[in-house]
């Protein structure tokens, strides 16, 4: 046991003396989660729009207020005529124009239908579609408020996901994926590099000649990183909550335990990588490329697993990230307990055990 502490202390020296690695360990997750979180989001905030309200009655006024109420739209201009629309778009700042024709309230109550025209700058079709959808949803809400089974030509788009993400906030779908990805990369990379480094520098030979059992070498190297990776997990979790407004509906202790479990899985994966590589560079590339691409593509992070062809669906089961994303989403968004997510947790436990066993095996072979 004393040997173990001696070893772990040495490992901490390595970590804290190597400022560059330390920066990667703690800087990378923060930067990446911000980049991923904000860049890969298709959510739109404070989009600048213009309104051409030709009816200017009580009801049209309220509609305009509702559009403004959320954080999606910011009304930049009040246009006076149709001719002004073209000019407003050309300025480039306005992404959408809402045109309310004359006698809006009157036609709504007497003719049972009113019209609202939405003009979007389709130069960026994705943004345009999103804006239109948002506006439609808001108008649909308004229509319901006005108590109309009366037919307005606009209805709310409903999808299954609405249930847990009423505003269709894409952040809720991305953040668990981003958190998982970063945690996996950082943890796996850390261990694989640290072990590869001993091999590259030749100090691994000295360790193997010493009476330290191989399992002790592996655990001695990895345990300090468990602590670091867990701190990382807390940072990532904190950013998800405070920066992106992810809720934590479930039990926080369970959530932390699951994070710890996933950290172990990732570290195990890192050890496994390090047993087959002798160079830090290779270890880094293997953990970056070998884990990044399959995880992004197959874990359900960006592309839903359900819509993949069967062989890929089966393959996705091998991705530890897939299971952790499910766990995160379930605990954070749905408030699930262990009763709901034990199968996924069990899969992660199994994977961890498998990785560590294979690693120690392989490690021993090199020794004798």
């Amino acid at each position, binding site marked *: 046991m*004393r*040997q173990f*502490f*001696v*070893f772990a*202390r*040495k490992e901490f*020296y*390595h970590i804290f*003396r*190597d400022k560059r690695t330390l920066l990667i360990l703690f800087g990378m997750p923060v930067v990446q989660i911000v980049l991923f979180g904000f860049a890969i989001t298709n959510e739109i905030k404070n989009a600048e729009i213009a309104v051409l309200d030709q009816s200017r009655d009580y009801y049209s006024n309220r509609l305009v207020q509702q559009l403004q109420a959320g954080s999606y739209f910011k009304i930049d201009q009040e246009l006076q005529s149709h001719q002004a629309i073209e000019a407003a778009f050309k300025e480039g700042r306005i992404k959408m124009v809402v045109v309310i024709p004359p006698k809006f309230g009157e036609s709504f109550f007497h003719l049972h239908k009113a019209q609202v025209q939405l003009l979007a700058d389709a130069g960026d079709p994705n943004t345009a579609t999103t804006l239109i959808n948002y506006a439609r949803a808001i108008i649909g809400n308004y229509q319901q408020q006005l108590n109309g089974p009366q037919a307005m030509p606009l209805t709310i788009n409903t999808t299954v996901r609405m249930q847990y993400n009423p505003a269709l906030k894409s952040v809720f779908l991305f953040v668990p994926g981003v958190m998982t990805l970063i945690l996996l990369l950082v943890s796996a990379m850390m261990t694989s590099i640290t072990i590869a480094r001993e091999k590259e*520098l*030749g*100090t691994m*030979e*000295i*360790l*193997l*000649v*010493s*009476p*330290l059992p191989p399992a002790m070498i592996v655990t001695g190297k990895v345990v300090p990183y468990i602590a670091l990776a867990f701190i990382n997990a807390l940072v990532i979790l904190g950013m998800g909550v405070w920066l992106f407004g992810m809720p934590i509906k479930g039990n926080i202790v369970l959530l932390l335990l699951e994070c710890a479990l996933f950290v172990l899985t990732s570290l195990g994966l890192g050890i496994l990588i390090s047993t087959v590589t002798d160079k830090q560079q290779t270890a880094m590339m293997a953990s970056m490329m070998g884990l990044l691409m399959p995880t992004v593509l197959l874990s359900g992070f960006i592309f839903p697993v359900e819509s993949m062809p069967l062989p890929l669906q089966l393959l996705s089961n091998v991705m530890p990230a897939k299971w952790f994303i499910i766990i995160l989403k379930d605990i954070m968004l749905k408030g699930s307990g262990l009763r709901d997510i034990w199968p996924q947790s069990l899969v992660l436990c199994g994977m961890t055990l498998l990785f560590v066993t294979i690693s120690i095996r392989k490690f021993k072979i090199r*020794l*004798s």
Partner: protein
Amino acid sequence: MHPIVTKELTKKFGAFIATNAITFEVKEGEIFGFLGANGAGKTTAMRMLCGLLRPSSGEAKVAGFDVYTQADKVKQNIGYMSQRFSLYEDLKVKENIRFYGGIYGLSNNVIKEKTKQLLQKLQMEAEAEQLVSALPLGWKQKLAFSVAILHDPSIVFLDEPTGGVDPVTRRQFWDLIYEAAGRGVTVFVTTHYMDEAEYCDRISIMVDGRIQALDTPRQLKAQFQADSMDDVFLKLARGK
């Protein structure tokens, strides 16, 4: 009983025979030089003796323990220093000593005492708190050797310990080796510096996985009618 005894020790990597049935013994307190060209099988032989590689066939006993079945005991009783650095560059001198003492199970008090002695002997007290990366190459090697025998092993294996340093520093390094041997430590050293070979009590020369010659430097020179070990080595290498 001899500290190192081998009989027909062989290591094959696939069809390649790295070490071909070598048989020799090393006496207690002896400085045993293990010579050979690159790829002659020196390092492979040494690794088998240290328990880093499993022999394909043959027998070997180190410090009285069998390398197949008692590798753990072997490891407790040997020190090892390799041509690549045995020290952690990003650790301070003191921390390196403490780490190696720790993994060999020395108590804190013993480590403290030994650290003091060692730094005094190497005249490195002033550098105790310096990172190893800041030391000159020769100092690192002397330190690495001292660390390798910190736990008082009965045998120390040195794999080309003086690669890349000047003759003066090499001489100083050998003073350390003599001193250890004088205390009864058996020294097993590989090298390809022929001047170093002259410092050894006995030498074996490996060619293509076999031991082609084994004797004292003086006897070998007589046997091959050579003026220096350099000549002995060249004659052997050419003669194959």
